């Protein structure tokens, strides 16, 4: 079974802080993704990566950056957290154009 692990289930941070969300997958998938999910808006893609050190912007990259130094790990960085970044953050991985497999999410609150 594919296992995608997100480092925190719940996180509370203050505005202006730099926030790191970590994601690790154990299936040697080349593709990894970061989404945020908000009520009524569905899943929105922030960034994705199709190889180590490669990244592509998704639909809503503003205020975020990513890092992929190793194949199994994909990090999402909030450069200077703001209250409108309070959300559920979901990491996923996939092999080629196959289905994406998701972690359990990080519920992030910015105060």
């Amino acid at each position, binding site marked *: 079974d594919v296992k995608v692990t997100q480092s925190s289930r719940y996180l509370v941070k203050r505005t202006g802080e730099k926030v790191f969300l970590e994601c690790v997958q154990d299936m040697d998938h080349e593709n990894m993704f970061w989404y945020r999910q908000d009520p009524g808006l569905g899943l929105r893609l922030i960034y994705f990566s199709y190889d180590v050190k490669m990244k592509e912007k998704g639909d809503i990259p503003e205020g975020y950056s990513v890092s992929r130094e190793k194949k199994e790990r994909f990090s999402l960085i909030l450069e200077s957290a703001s209250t409108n970044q309070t959300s559920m953050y979901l990491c996923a991985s996939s092999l080629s154009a196959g289905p994406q*497999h*998701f972690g359990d999410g990080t519920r992030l609150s910015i105060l």
Partner: protein
Amino acid sequence: EDQVTQSPEALRLQEGESSSLNCSYTVSGLRGLFWYRQDPGKGPEFLFTLYSAGEEKEKERLKATLTKKESFLHITAPKPEDSATYLCAVPISGAGSYQLTFGKGTKLSVIP
């Protein structure tokens, strides 16, 4: 533009009352359609992949079917534990693209 539309937005069923969820899509050159189940506060859990019209997949009380324009998730004799939000997704158009377009989901509630 690639689009995925799910209906209804919400569905309440009595335990044992069978029904279907709909996922309609517009995409050039379908390269698969994926169904997911999402429980509150958790990430989506992959259920099925369908690749071609006429294909069917089953898992317990769930059966997914695919036509050229839509997919259905049939739920037979549902139980309260089937309550969840069901999402469908398709790969966006474009060779080599790995991104998915998701529908907004159908929230299913099964009442005992």
